């Protein structure tokens, strides 16, 4: 009876959409201008029989418009997209989480042959992600890192957007919002 008279809260799945962004305070984005981004989006990873991580990719029907939206925001903010072998200032890696597992920090290496790698900043943990989260990470160049890994200097998470009832407009809105609330990414 008490539950029935308790306030209702969210009524629609869109009501729980949330976008979280965080950045490394000591990193100077304004001196950067180029970025590289893969053309696929990882959704999961499993170990094969040989013990190697095998990524699972999002269907391009969904991945392509998401990647286009990210690129559009980066272009609008004054960034230039270059190839990974053109020595980009930063790398932007998008992923979607199919299940809440700790796979995300590994998949990066598959694309870039281990040359670029990154680690999470200490104030943010993977456990904050829920199933269906769209994650974008900008990582810095590992040039000055003794372990050859750049740090994640920006993380944008659109929680719960990539759900079963897939709605590209909600995902696009989440991506736009992540950039809107991150004015330090604007170079122009």
């Amino acid at each position, binding site marked *: 009876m008490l539950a029935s008279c308790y*306030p209702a809260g969210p009524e629609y799945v869109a009501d729980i*959409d*949330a976008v*979280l962004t965080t950045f490394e305070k000591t990193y100077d984005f304004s001196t950067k201008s180029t970025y590289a981004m893969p053309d696929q989006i990882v959704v999961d990873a499993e170990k094969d029989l040989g013990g190697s991580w095998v990524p699972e990719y999002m269907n391009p029907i969904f991945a392509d418009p998401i990647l286009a939206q990210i690129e559009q925001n980066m272009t609008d903010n004054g960034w230039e997209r270059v190839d990974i072998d053109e020595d980009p200032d930063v790398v932007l890696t998008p992923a979607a989480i199919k299940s809440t597992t700790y796979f995300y920090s590994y998949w990066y290496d598959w694309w870039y042959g281990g040359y670029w790698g990154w680690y999470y900043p200490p104030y943010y943990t993977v456990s904050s992600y829920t199933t269906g989260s769209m994650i974008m990470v900008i990582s810095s160049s590992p040039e000055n890192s003794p372990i050859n890994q750049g740090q994640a200097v920006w993380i944008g998470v659109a929680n719960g957007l990539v759900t079963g009832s897939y709605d590209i407009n909600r995902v696009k809105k989440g991506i736009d919002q992540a950039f*809107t609330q991150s004015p330090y990414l604007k170079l122009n």
Partner: protein
Amino acid sequence: MTKKLFFIALLLCTAGALKAQKYTGITYSIGFPSGDLTDFIDKTSFRGINIDYKNLIQPNIGIGFSVGWNVFYTDMDEATYTVDNISIWGKQYRYANYIPLFINANYYLKPDESLNPFVGLGIGTMYSLRNTDMNLYTYKRDAWNFALQPEVGLLFDTENGMALNVSARYTYGFQAGSELTEAQSYFSINLGFVFMK
């Protein structure tokens, strides 16, 4: 400590005067935020209930206890909330629950008449619980406040062992704890019945 005192006093006042008249009441409570609560939720609450018990140690003095529950709620428009270098955008759903537990003393101005105004004071503790929900997460803060509750009201005796009861209360919980550290308060209008025997 406050809770212990409350229950000891509860035993005393229920066991004390077996022959005296007893008032047992239930009221529906409408809550109006005040103070720190206004900044969190500024909407009137239509979800509230009180249960009251009074032992009349004299015809015009009742000692007893009361238990209540008021829940305030609001949803916020989509907005960005920034703390340090973390920004979160989304809709917020805010809940504030108050459960006051009081020992009460009431003074009845006209105990022999059908319209019987009264004033009262409750002293005890209040459990305050505040939740901020975003996405699938909730940010919870709570406190056990030392609390006071002045009250003015009116009983209308229907002369069949029951009176209609309307009252206004101000519930004030003093600063407490380490989470919800601000003092918590609200006004309430309470409508209900008192059974007299």
